[in-house]
């Protein structure tokens, strides 16, 4: 940006420092995630595993390569995807409470998974061959199909509906409808199946192996790539669709890409990790408050960094280093997230930046 007075320069410098800080934080969290867990692995051995050095203890190599590394990478991808999706939803609907699942995408995914886990008791042998076909991807496929269905509905309806608020309400209703069907399935299912479904709905970064991780990375990078084309459009949407149109933007196309990107991102996370709350809502606000801007040119890189950091931190805490216990991710995000947001909100004097998008 052109600098004419002192203020913007010092603001820019501060932001650069913040970016640097977060990069360091991410590196630290990454290493900690590999080092801590039920077993503590020394850093130099972690480095050894990463560079493929000989002589590191077998069990440690196994743990790092097959458990911790995929998990932390999953956390990074999920954190970025959720934050990116949340940011776009908040901007598009100009609603600070919007989250990645506001259009019912993860309800669709939940429906897919519910049918896969619970539905087979109804249709007997029909699902089993399909499940074995999908193999390790079966749950992911089921979730993706469900999410995809809702996404298609949203995109279709989005072309006809003028008012964003109307779209929002329709999305909420889709979500309620699919949740109702899931409840129905749960109601008529055997306890073991309900438990299996329950466990899925707690959310986890641990269930993703390398093959799945590759697919997840591809999809999420595509979604984030789409969003990265949109800083100008997203900034324009902050003023509303009318202003955006008079500034020469193709609002219909913009809306389509935003919906597509946000839904693919949130759908992918739900498909691979289960529904994970809080991160998508909170990270954009953290970014806005820390970097003191609503400008997406700064926010997009910011939420990528902050999303990765927050997600890794949550995953680390969930691992309860030193014990064998593992907490569900959703529990960690909510338990730590809610008080944090309360603290942020109460400590602000005027709160204007907190709540406006």
């Amino acid at each position, binding site marked *: *940006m*052109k600098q*004419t*007075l002192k*203020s*913007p320069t010092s603001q820019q410098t501060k932001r650069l420092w913040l970016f640097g800080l977060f990069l360091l934080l991410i590196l630290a969290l990454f290493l900690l995630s590999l080092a801590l867990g039920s077993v503590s692995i020394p850093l130099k051995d972690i480095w050894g595993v990463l560079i493929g050095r000989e002589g590191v203890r077998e069990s440690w190599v196994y743990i790092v390569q097959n458990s911790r590394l995929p998990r932390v990478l999953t956390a990074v991808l999920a954190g970025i995807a959720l934050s990116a999706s949340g940011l776009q939803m908040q901007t598009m609907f*100009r609603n600070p409470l919007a989250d990645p699942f506001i259009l019912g995408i993860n309800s669709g995914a939940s429906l897919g998974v519910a049918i896969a886990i619970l539905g087979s008791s109804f249709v007997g042998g029909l699902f089993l061959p399909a499940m074995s076909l999908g193999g390790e991807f079966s749950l992911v496929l089921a979730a993706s199909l469900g999410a995809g269905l809702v996404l298609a509905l949203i995109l279709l309806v989005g072309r006809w509906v003028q008012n964003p608020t109307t779209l929002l309400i329709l999305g909420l209703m889709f979500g309620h409808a699919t949740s109702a069907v899931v409840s129905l399935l749960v109601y008529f299912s055997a306890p073991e199946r309900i438990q299996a479904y329950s466990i899925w709905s707690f959310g986890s970064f641990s269930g993703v192996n390398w093959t799945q991780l590759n697919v997840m990375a591809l999809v999420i990078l595509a979604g984030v790539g789409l969003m990265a*084309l949109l*800083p*100008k459009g997203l*900034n*324009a949407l*902050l*003023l*509303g669709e*009318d*202003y955006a*149109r*008079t*500034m*020469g*933007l*193709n609002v219909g196309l913009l809306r389509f890409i935003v919906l597509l990107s946000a839904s693919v991102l949130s759908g992918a996370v739900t498909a691979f990790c289960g529904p994970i709350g809080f991160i998508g809502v909170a990270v954009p606000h953290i970014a*806005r408050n820390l970097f*003191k*801007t*609503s*400008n997406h*040119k700064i926010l997009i890189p910011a939420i990528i960094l902050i999303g990765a950091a927050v997600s890794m931190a949550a995953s680390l805490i969930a691992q309860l280093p030193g014990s064998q216990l593992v907490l569900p991710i959703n529990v960690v995000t909510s338990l730590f997230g809610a008080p944090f947001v309360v603290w942020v909100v109460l400590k602000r004097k005027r709160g*204007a*930046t907190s*709540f*406006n*998008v």
Partner: protein
Amino acid sequence: MIADQLNLQLNAGEFVCLVGPNGVGKSTLLRTVTGLQPKLGGEILMSGKKLETYQPRELAGQVSVVLTSPISVGAMRVDELTAMGRFPFTGLFDRMSEHDWEVVHETLRVVGVEKLSHRYVHTLSDGERQKVMIARALAQEPRLLILDEPTAYLDLPGRVVVMNLLHDLASGHDKAVLTSTHDLDLALRHADRIWLMDDVGRIIQGAPEDLVLNGSFAQTFNRAGVRFDPLSGTFDSQNSGSKSVFLEGVGPEVVWTRRALHRAGFAVDEEWIPGSPRVCVMPQNDVITWQVELVGQTITFTTVYDLLQSLPK
């Protein structure tokens, strides 16, 4: 269908105010002219070319808008927000050139918000924020600037400043400026031309004075049940003015005394009718006194309030 048989022209260098009673369709007309709403029939030509044939970005270079509702952007600086007016000219990633920034700074200066450049938009007053939105619209370098009730949330000084600004933009910067407003008084004072819209969808064009003198104003607003007084250029109180009073004196004090008498339900006569009160306004140095002669008695007052209290109800 809201309005029909419209034949209107907007010229560069002119400041036009669209006025009319509530609900006649002013916003709809503006939204149709800017392309935010599709037209039902007829032709809209912008610089000789049909509106529909314009690409969005092309059109954005011709016309920009300022809408009524105050925006609620979170944390954006005034210069960042104004720079959004350059969107039609910057590429996909909104890379601003030297020239783009020059336009932005010049616009901020013209609108008079240059000192606020680095302030956050949400910390500004409503009036300042609206000026920033005007700056944003101007940064688009349009030939036509359209505003929909831009002064709705402003206080009176704020409204005067905006109307002055709009007039200057038209005459001094060779733009066509069209604004809808409920501020009849300011419109009559500042507009080069008025588009007077009535409740059956007709629009009468003309200089403000023409529309007042040929009775168009009175007629349009009378239909809405309000009486427009050509003498004062304002809306009159609905009192019938059955009681008579004679007023003497010169200067602004007399004008205001007459207004007070109207409000109290008096008709001010040209000549004194015996039996009615005689009010004489006497400004002396810094003190104004009112002398009332009624039924042979003369009483002096120092405030309009006391004067009105003394007159027969």
